[in-house]
């Protein structure tokens, strides 16, 4: 089994996006079939506007309030230590003048079944991120997406994932809408405020050579090098 990460990157707005987060968790509870969301203290969270506001305000960094706040919430109390746990990683409230971004990620353990992709589409409609994707852990590591992203600003994708949404600002930087809609993938369609690319039907699998071939072709189409060497770091 592979582990997946659904990631949504939003441009910082300087607010916590509490309304969007509440709507997002209503959706995710349905997607992952969990009745409660738990905090890192293994207690169920009261998902109300006031409570989220209180939690986020408490976590604001005193030295750098502009960098936003981090929270990790879970579908199962983390004390139970179950690989079926789904972790919701939220970084929100970043100020617009920062180089950092707001992220709303979902880490899905390898024992947990990935829900229908339509839930992720709905989530994209809630947050309207500039980029969202369902990445597969091994594939991300093999293509070194972390170091690639270090080298480029957030205005273009580091790699193309099996399920990948980009808004117009990103599309402009990788050849424009027309070029994007011609991408060699199973499905490419206009969606929300950009384009949604699905390389293969269903989930991307790094052990399937067909999937890797399609990914390679799509990346070449957007001018993203498949073979990439990280710059030498003298440490």
């Amino acid at each position, binding site marked *: 089994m592979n582990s997946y990460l659904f990631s949504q990157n939003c441009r910082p707005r300087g607010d916590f996006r509490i309304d969007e987060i509440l709507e997002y968790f209503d959706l995710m509870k349905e997607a992952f079939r969990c009745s409660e969301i738990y905090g*890192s203290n293994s207690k169920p969270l009261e998902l109300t506007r006031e409570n989220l506001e209180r939690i986020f305000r408490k976590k604001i960094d005193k030295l750098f309030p502009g*960098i936003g706040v981090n929270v990790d919430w879970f579908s199962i109390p983390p004390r139970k230590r179950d*690989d079926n*746990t789904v972790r919701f990683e939220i970084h929100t409230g970043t100020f617009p003048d920062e180089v950092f971004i707001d992220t709303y990620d979902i880490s899905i353990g390898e024992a947990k079944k990935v829900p229908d992709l339509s839930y992720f589409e709905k989530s994209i409609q809630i947050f309207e991120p500039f980029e969202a994707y369902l990445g597969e852990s091994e594939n991300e590591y093999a293509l070194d997406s972390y170091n690639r992203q*270090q080298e480029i600003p957030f205005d273009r994708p580091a790699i193309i994932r099996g399920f990948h949404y980009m808004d117009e600002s990103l599309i402009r930087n990788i050849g424009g809408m027309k070029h994007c809609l011609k991408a060699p993938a199973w499905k490419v369609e206009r969606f929300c405020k950009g384009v949604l690319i699905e390389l293969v039907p269903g989930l991307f699998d790094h052990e399937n050579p067909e999937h890797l071939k399609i990914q390679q072709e799509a990346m070449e189409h957007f001018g993203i090098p498949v073979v990439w060497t990280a710059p030498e770091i003298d*440490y």
Partner: protein
Amino acid sequence: MIETEAQRRWWFATHPELSGGRRGDRVGKHKKGKGESDEVSPEVVDAYVEQALEHETDDVVIEMLKRTKFWFGSEFDSKTAEEQRALLWGDDDGDGSPDEPANKGGNHQTSRAPKGHPAASKAGYTQYEDVLDRVEDYQQEIFERAIEQDKKGLEPDPHTFLDLFPWRRLVTSPVGFVRGLVRGAARGTVVHAVKKAGSKGPGTWVEVPRGPNGMAHQSKMSGQQIRESGGRLYIKEYEVNGVKFDDYKNGKLYEYKGPHGHLFDKNNDLRPWVKDPGEMRKQAVRQAKAAKGIPVIWRVGAHQVKAFKNAVGKVRGVEIVP
């Protein structure tokens, strides 16, 4: 029989000499790998001392360094076994051969420097010796008192306010405090004489108290010594714009992450139930923010790069390397 947590604490509080699991005691101890050894070669000692002597101006420290070089450097090693014994045990009877320890009449188990050891005659060393002797006497007294208390048997669980009051800490903590002070001062003098001054840069080196977890790894990587004082552990870290880093060298800021193997699954992914990836991310963001463009490098275990990248997420300005 010790049955409760309170009894266990009482027992360790009254048997300080057996409290091997107390904070800080494990620092520096680790399982030796095959072929690994504590020994430092005499040539390395020579090189370190020569380097330190170039910078040192204090006469007492210079003398200590010279004697360190003599006893642990290549000079002593180059002598024959006979000459070494003569240097160690002296040749009072003038027969040309070293005297046997049994003939010297001294208690060799308790004396720190053998007769003839030059360090023993130095004023600075004698001063530390005196303080250490007093601390040892005090420890012995505490130990005997604890034995007396032990004879009375184990105490029951606390029932009253007086039972809860940690009055024993008033007895044991001064010992730890004095011992830490003396050891810290003595070690600090030598370490500062031997170690080069910390790298200069955009921030300052500050000494901070830290928990024992990962302290040995941090010390090994950064070269900063751990200092124990009053039962707490201190280490120097590099502070830039109010945020602390483990090291600064070659124009880069470093964070050293010790083994986190228990948090990763067989694929070296961070387990989904791990509670604190947010803390790692927060630390990375704060460091990137404070660094203001200076490269920040996280050195992690060779098999944990992937997991740390997952945990840190999309923080620009933090390189994660093995």
